[in-house]
C-alpha cells in the first residue's frame, strides 16, 4: 500500500514536472540560448535600435495607463458587486468576465468597429482630431480591455471575506464613507488588489492579439514589444526577435516574482 502510494506520488511529480519542462522550460531556454548564440552584440544592438526602444516605451505607456485605470475601476466594481444589491448585478458580474471569454482578436475587431474610420464613432473622433485606431489610444484601449477583469476578480473574494462589520464600526466611530474606504477597506483588501494588479500587468505586458488588430503595426510608431518580436521574427531578424522576447520575459518574470513576494506577505499578514 505504501509502496504503491510512493510510486503514485513520484509518478504524479514526474508528470507535473515533465509537463512544465517540455512545454515551458525547454522553449524558454532555447530562446535564451539562441539570443546569445553570437555573443552579446547583436541582441543589444537590436534592443537599442530606435524601433526597439520605441516598442519598449510604448509597452510601458500602454501598461502604465491600462493598469492604474483598471485598478481604480476594479476596486470600485468589486465594491459595487459585493456590497450593493441592485437589478442587473448578475449581468454586470458576467460582463466583467467577457475579456476572459472573448478571443483578443475579436476584442480588437470590436474596437475597430467602434473607433475605426468606418466605425460607430470613429469618423467623429477623427474629425475632432483624435485618432484612436492605428495609434496609441487604440492600443491603450485594447490593453485596458484585455486586462480588465483581474483586479475585480482578485478583490471580490477578499471583500467578501472581510465582511462589512469593520466598515460599520468605522462609521459609528464617526468616519465618512471616504475615510472608511481609505483607512479601513483599502488596507484590508490591499493584498488582493496588489495580486490583481500584478496579474493585470503581466497580461497587459504580453498582449498581442487585440493590440495587433488595432495597431496597424507601423514600426517605430505603433509597435509594442510583443508586436516588435513578431515583426523582427517575420523579417528574419532573429537576434532582435529573441532579444526583445528576453526583455519581455524578464519584465514578466519580475512581475511574477513580485506576485510571489506579495503572496508570501499575505500569508504572514
Amino acid at each position, binding site marked *: 500500500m505504501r509502496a504503491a502510494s510512493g510510486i503514485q506520488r513520484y509518478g504524479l511529480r514526474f508528470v507535473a514536472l515533465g509537463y512544465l519542462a517540455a512545454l515551458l522550460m525547454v522553449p524558454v531556454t532555447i530562446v535564451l540560448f539562441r539570443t546569445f548564440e553570437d555573443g552579446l552584440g547583436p541582441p543589444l544592438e537590436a534592443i537599442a535600435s530606435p524601433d526597439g526602444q520605441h516598442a519598449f516605451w510604448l509597452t510601458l505607456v500602454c501598461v502604465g495607463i491600462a493598469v492604474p485605470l483598471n485598478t481604480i475601476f476594479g476596486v470600485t466594481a468589486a465594491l459595487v458587486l459585493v456590497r450593493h444589491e441592485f437589478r442587473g448585478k448578475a449581468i454586470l458580474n458576467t460582463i466583467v468576465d467577457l475579456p476572459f471569454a472573448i478571443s483578443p482578436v475579436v476584442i480588437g475587431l470590436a474596437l475597430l468597429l467602434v473607433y475605426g474610420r468606418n466605425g460607430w464613432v470613429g469618423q467623429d473622433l477623427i474629425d475632432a482630431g483624435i485618432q484612436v485606431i492605428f495609434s496609441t489610444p487604440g492600443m491603450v484601449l485594447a490593453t485596458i480591455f484585455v486586462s480588465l477583469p483581474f483586479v475585480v476578480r482578485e478583490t471580490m473574494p477578499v471583500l467578501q471575506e*472581510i465582511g462589512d*462589520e*469593520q466598515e*460599520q*464600526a*468605522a*462609521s*459609528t*466611530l*464617526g*468616519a*465618512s464613507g471616504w*475615510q472608511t474606504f481609505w*483607512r*479601513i477597506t483599502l*488596507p*484590508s483588501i490591499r493584498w488582493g488588489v496588489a495580486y490583481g494588479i500584478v496579474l493585470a500587468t503581466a497580461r497587459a505586458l504580453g498582449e498581442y492579439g487585440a493590440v495587433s488588430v488595432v495597431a496597424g503595426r507601423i514600426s517605430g510608431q505603433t509597435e509594442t514589444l510583443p508586436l516588435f518580436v513578431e515583426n523582427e521574427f517575420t523579417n528574419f531578424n532573429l537576434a532582435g526577435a529573441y532579444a526583445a522576447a528576453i526583455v519581455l520575459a524578464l519584465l514578466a518574470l519580475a512581475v511574477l516574482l513580485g506576485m510571489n513576494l506579495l503572496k508570501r506577505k499575505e500569508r504572514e*499578514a
Partner: protein
Amino acid sequence: MSPGGIAVEGVEKRFGAFEALKGVSVAVPNGSLTALLGPSGSGKSTLLRVIAGLEQPDAGRVLIAGQDATAVTPQKRGVGFVFQHYAAFKHMTVERNVAFGLKIRKKQKEEIAARVDRLLELVHLQGFAHRYPSELSGGQRQRMALARALAVEPEVLLLDEPFGALDATVRKELRTWLRRLHEDVHVTTIFVTHDQEEAMDVAQQIVVMNDGLIEQVGSPRDLYEQPANEFVMGFVGEVNRLGDDLVRPHDIEILLEPDGNAREGQIERVAHLGFEVRVELVLDDGRRLAVQTTRQDAEERELESGQIVYLRPDGARRFVGP
C-alpha cells in the same frame, strides 16, 4: 422621558418578506443599563442596529436625548457600537484601533495618546497597546472594541451580543466587568443577549422581545416574579406545566404522603447540582416535570428514583389565552 435617554416609537423593519420589527416602542432611561432579551429572530439585534443607524426603519422614529435621530447617519449619531465578532481593525494595533475615532475627529496627538492610555487602563489592556488584534484572545479583543467605542465619548453605548462568541468563563467575567464599567462611566447602555441569565445578572432593565414585538419591559425581578405572559415566564426561567397552570421548579413542594389535590408522581432521577438538587418526575398522565429543592431537603427525606411522591404547586400562574 429623561433628557439623555433613548426613545423608540413605532419602529417597523422588514427584510424582504421577513418582518423583523412589527411596530416597536420602548423608552430607555438616561444612564441606565438595559438588556434586549429574546430568542434568535426576535428582532432584538435589528432594533439595536436601528438605534445605531446601521439599519433604516421602514416606519417609526428613534429619539436620542430628545432629538429625532431617525435620519441621522451612524457617523453623526454619537453612538458607540460593539459587535458580537468584535469588528477589530485587523491591520491596526490595539492603540490605533482605540485611537481611530479620535483621529477622525482630528484631536491633538497628545490628547489622543493620553485618552488611549486611560482607556486601555480602564479595559485592563495596558501592556497590549502595540499588539495586533490577531495576537489577542477573544475577551481581550472585545475589551479593545469597547475601549474603541468609549473613546469618542458616545451618548449611547450599544452592544450586540457582546459576549456571544466567548467561552463561558470569560463571558461571566466580562459581564461582571461590564456592570462595573457602567457604574464608572454611566453612559446609557443597551446590550442584546439571548441569555436570560446574562440579562438578569447585568441589566437594570430588561426588554423581552419575541417575533418582532416587545413582550414586556421591567426589572429582572419584575420579569421573574410578574411575567406578563406565558412567553416571558418561559423565557426568563424554567417552567413546568400542570394542567393550565405554569409553575417554576422551585415553587413545587414534594410531599411524601397524599394530601388533598396534590398530584401523584414518580421520581425518575435525582440530580445533585451542588447546593441545589433537581428532581425529575413523571406524573400519572405521563407528563414530565422538574422540581428544585435543596440538598438538605433531598437528603433528609431520602428522595430517590423510583419513589412515589405527591406534588403541590405553590405560586402557579395561569395566563388566559388570547
